[in-house]
């Protein structure tokens, strides 16, 4: 799913300036626990979160997350946005709840993909045609 589709589906806004928006994500991961993101997330993914501090940007940087979307009208401060701009990670914001954000993306075919807890191979949630 590309970033333009995500923006349209969630009626979202872009918070970062001068960060390229021509991005495509293969899966999504949703968490407020950055430790979980670092443990379980996979590359080429979208992070849906309600946490807005600088650690979210750092976590995305280390875990090679492509795009972050903040839910429910939450906004990071300008310093956090600046860090994302430096790291070239686009930040999006939607007014939808976390449940609705994930629901709408799922409805349009986006699925999660993650590392299993016991170091087993990556789990892919089977995508179905919509």
């Amino acid at each position: 799913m590309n970033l333009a589709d995500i923006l349209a589906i969630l009626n979202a806004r872009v918070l970062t300036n001068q960060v390229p928006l021509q991005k495509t994500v293969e899966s999504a991961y949703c968490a407020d626990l950055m430790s979980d993101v670092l443990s379980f997330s996979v590359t080429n993914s979208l992070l849906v979160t309600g946490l807005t501090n600088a650690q979210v940007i750092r976590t995305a940087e280390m875990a090679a997350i492509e795009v972050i979307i903040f839910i429910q009208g939450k906004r990071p401060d300008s310093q956090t946005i600046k860090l994302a701009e430096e790291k070239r990670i686009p930040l999006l914001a939607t007014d939808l709840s976390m449940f609705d954000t994930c629901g709408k993306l799922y409805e349009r075919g986006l699925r999660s993909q993650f590392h299993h807890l016991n170091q087993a191979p990556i789990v892919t949630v089977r995508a179905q045609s919509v």
Partner: protein
Amino acid sequence: MNNVEEGVFFLTGKDFTNAGAASSSLKGVLEKRGVPQDIIRRTAIAAFEAEMNVIIYAVAGMMKYRITDTEISVTIQDMGQGIPNIELAMTEGYSTAPDYIREMGFGSGMGLPNIKKSTDYFVINSMIGEGTTLEFTIHLIPCDKERA
């Protein structure tokens, strides 16, 4: 050919503004060196987890790295309270983090297990009241026989 690169970053406890800066710099070094993306990701995740531990729990610390043609080794040494029970600390979900750390998205007891998961070699040494030293290594090539 033995192209060794070494460096050190200093870490300050409770400095949450710069938490992650050292791991970010290390990631930059690896990118410049042309290390494969999946190895960079594993190193960055392990370094970041270790760096956050120092920021959260210790007074100060440092992160040393050494990159050779065959491996990346990182040592994170801190002046902190030490870990009383390392086995317990290695258990997924076990944490002693205060609430304000959890509100930042950390302290869910996944840090040390995640470092173990991300690396090829991982050792912890800890002394109560003195501090903790973590060492981890990630192989750059799975087998060394071509160079022997």
